[in-house]
């Protein structure tokens, strides 16, 4: 009775969780809520996001196995950590000189004991070492991958290349873009470097390989939950080693497909964005309209319209997250620079509206975006 109840409860919870997840996917995947997409794909690495590691919150199959094995190792080795400490403490307390004229013992060897503390550690090492073998070979043997990603380290950023999807990206407006993969898909990485040694490491995934010029290091993992994971370069690579951040975004399959679509259309959107972001005084709607028109002349589809809107919003957000570095400027220069940036940021909502109108108009009207501009100018 109670068992059935528990099963029912579990099912209900599972349905609720699954339903919640599915709902989220449906909302973002079907809809064209650009802001939600920006919030997902263009997350700020330095937002309030907890660091997750193999040992605190594993997020891949390998990390889970390593974490389990790590517990096993600790349990088996624990006596060898704690026993000497206890014996030492006991000996220190028990055999303290108390000035009672006690004669110290005179034994100098004990063959059985010596054999035991040689043999027992060896046995323990076998207990720990034997399961390490299949785990090691599992980690090291390449899998048939769903995502084949080439990662190139350079001082001080990471470039990602998805061969099958034909997309490549790296830093964007001075921000390191996250590597995006779909949950429960095998991710295979080929890691190399353009210059000095780096190491690619997202702690939650439990894999780390050096990025070395002249060779490709392979590793693979399967992310088991969605989320945004952060990491850092793990091999000293010079002055920027500490700020050579890494991030990875694990999303659902539909979200991943949409991200791929966005990435593929990314390059064409830049001209529109460049037309949008100029100083307030020099802002020319005609130039934007021209760029939008050119963009749609290359191909007209709902996807491309979405991509254009997404990238405009996303790029503005990147700019907001990456204001000009004023630390080594004179106070006067810094003030001017900050004001310029603030003015630009203030204009962002209006710019996005203008761009959206033009894009919608361009889609609705077919060949020309001229009437939309006219409407704007009234």
């Amino acid at each position, binding site marked *: 009775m109670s068992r059935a109840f528990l099963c029912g409860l579990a099912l209900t919870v599972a349905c609720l969780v699954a339903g919640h997840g599915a709902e989220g996917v449906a909302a973002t995947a079907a809809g064209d809520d650009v802001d939600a997409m920006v919030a997902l794909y263009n997350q700020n690495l330095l937002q309030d996001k907890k660091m997750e590691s193999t040992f605190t919150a594993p997020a891949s199959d390998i990390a889970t196995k390593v974490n389990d094995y790590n517990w096993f190792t600790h349990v088996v080795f624990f006596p060898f950590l704690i026993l000497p400490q206890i014996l030492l403490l006991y000996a220190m307390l028990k055999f303290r000189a108390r000035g009672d004229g006690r004669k110290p013992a005179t034994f100098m060897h004990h063959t059985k004991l010596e054999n035991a503390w040689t043999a027992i550690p060896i046995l323990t*090492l076998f207990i720990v070492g034997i399961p390490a073998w299949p785990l090691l070979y599992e980690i090291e043997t390449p899998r048939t991958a769903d995502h084949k990603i080439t990662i190139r380290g350079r001082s001080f950023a990471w470039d990602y290349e998805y061969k099958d999807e034909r997309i490549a990206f790296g830093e964007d407006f001075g921000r390191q873009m996250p590597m995006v993969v779909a949950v429960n898909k095998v991710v295979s990485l080929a890691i190399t470097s353009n210059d000095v040694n780096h190491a690619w490491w997202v*702690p939650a995934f439990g894999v780390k390989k050096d990025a070395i010029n002249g060779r490709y290091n392979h590793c693979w993992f399967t992310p088991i939950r969605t989320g945004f994971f952060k990491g850092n370069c793990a091999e000293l690579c010079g002055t920027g080693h500490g700020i050579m951040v890494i991030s990875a975004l694990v999303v659902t399959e539909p979200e991943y497909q949409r991200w791929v679509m966005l990435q593929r259309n990314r390059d064409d959107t830049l001209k529109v964005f460049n037309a949008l972001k100029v100083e307030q005084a020099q802002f020319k709607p005609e130039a934007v309209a021209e760029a939008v028109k050119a963009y749609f002349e290359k191909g007209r589809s709902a996807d491309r319209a979405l991509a254009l809107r997404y990238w405009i919003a996303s790029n503005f957000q990147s700019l907001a997250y990456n204001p000009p570095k004023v630390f080594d400027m004179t106070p006067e220069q810094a003030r001017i620079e900050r004001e310029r940036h603030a003015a630009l940021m203030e204009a962002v909502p209006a710019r996005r509206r203008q761009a959206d109108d033009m894009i919608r108009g361009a889609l609705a009207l077919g060949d020309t975006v001229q009437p939309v501009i006219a409407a704007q100018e009234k």
Partner: protein
Amino acid sequence: MTATAIGLPEIKRYTGVMDWLTTVDHKKIGLLYFWFTLTMGIVGGFLAGGIRLQLALPGAVLETIHRAHLDGTAEPFALFGDTDRGLYNQFMTMHASVMIFMVIIPSFASFGNYLVPLMIGARDMAFPKMNGFAFWLLIPAAMLMFGSFFVTGGAAQSGWTAYPPLSINSQGPGQDMWILGVHLAGLSSILGAINFLVTMTNMRAPGMTWLKMPLFCWAVFITSILQFAATPVLASAVTMLLTDRNFGTTFLDASKGGDPVLYQHIFWFYSHPAVYIMVLPGFGAVTHIIAAFSQKRVFGYLGMVLAIAAIALLGFVVWAHHMFSVGMPTALLAWFMYASYGIGVPTGVKIFSWIATMWGGNIRFTTAMKFACGMVSLFVLGGFGGLILATVPIDYSLHDTYYVVGHFHYTLVGGSVMVLFGMTYFWWPKMTGRMLNETVGTVVFWFMFLGVLITFATMHVSGIVGMPRRIPVYYEDFKFLNHITTFGYLLTIIGALIFFVQVVWSMRKPATATDDPWAINDLQGGLEWATSSPPPVYNFAKVPPIPIVSQMPEH
């Protein structure tokens, strides 16, 4: 009877400073080594202080810097700000280089020089002049290393491991000066090792058979074999760096047919044995301290000797466990994992033997004994971390994190430096005739022990939660842990400074220590206690019957 009276040419004798500059007496050279390493240790400690200070300031938190960026406020305060990250790397590189090449390795040469001839009943080292030469090589080595702070581009900033291509790409002569400094320090180390090997092979007093040799001598002997065999390999590695940097060779340049990983293999082929060079003499010495103050003889002498030899031997075949993430064939990974496990066995033998030496004893907790017990305790912790790190699947998540930093500091500071402090308290009366105050010593011990425990335990945790090493800035997640670590550092450096002052201060007092200040010689039979404190230039007027007490049990 003077030399001229028996027809020998008069030898010019200096006094004062000139005496110290020209001495070839192993005891004076040992003391020179001691003062040199003590000074360098304090300097290296302050370099670490720069690192710890940076990591405790708000300007080290990426999120704080980011918020300051967004708000347009001033850069948060940091020792090494946005434009000084290179200087941070210099501090980090030089902290490691100084502590390894200028402090720990030569400090065992210090005690080795002073004690080994006394312990084996010799009147000096086999090559006294080479002995002096080996010490004086360290001075230009140190000058090169520290001088490099003042040249264009600053000191070396590619870590003490100096991995190419970073070390080849770096600008300025700092890296070259580092390389030459390592060459000189390495040469000093090789010459010292040859001297120890020859001395112990040929100059043992009659009756001092191999298996009657005290364990410290055994440890120095085996360490010398490691130094003699491995240090030239380091020289070859850094020579490749030097010629790649300056003479256009391409040993390590992947774009021209070289291989940067080659350097790592050669480097660690030296530097893994080097970690045993840094800890094995301490293993030997701590045995003396434990046996002396437990008022017992060493438990399992032969096992101890064999364990040291086994560690040294295995130390040559495990180097690649420092570079698991570099990309190696799986079979090699497996080999280096299991071989590294193997080192745990002889180390365990030593740990258990030390405890067995204490067992049933009548333990006097002098400062030296406190340091010895502290060392055993901390070394167990360090060794445990070593086993975890040796496991490749786990190591992928810990490699190049603060877990590694915590691990090797537990073994090097908790292991070697704690013993060095203990050795100083134990043998200082013999070396200078001055006793070190036990109360002050106890204060030093607790500062050091708690400092080391706190500093490096929190480093382990930082590594587990994902903090990479060698970074001047970090995610906010690690802020709290780094504050604790810096607090631990403060305890450690306070302890070290009190120790420094105490040792310097002790020289102002008259040399009043007795020949056997700890009253242990009846049991231990160490020849060093059979002569005066400090010993005369000739060590023994008449070599005493050897050995007074054998450490080898009669089977």
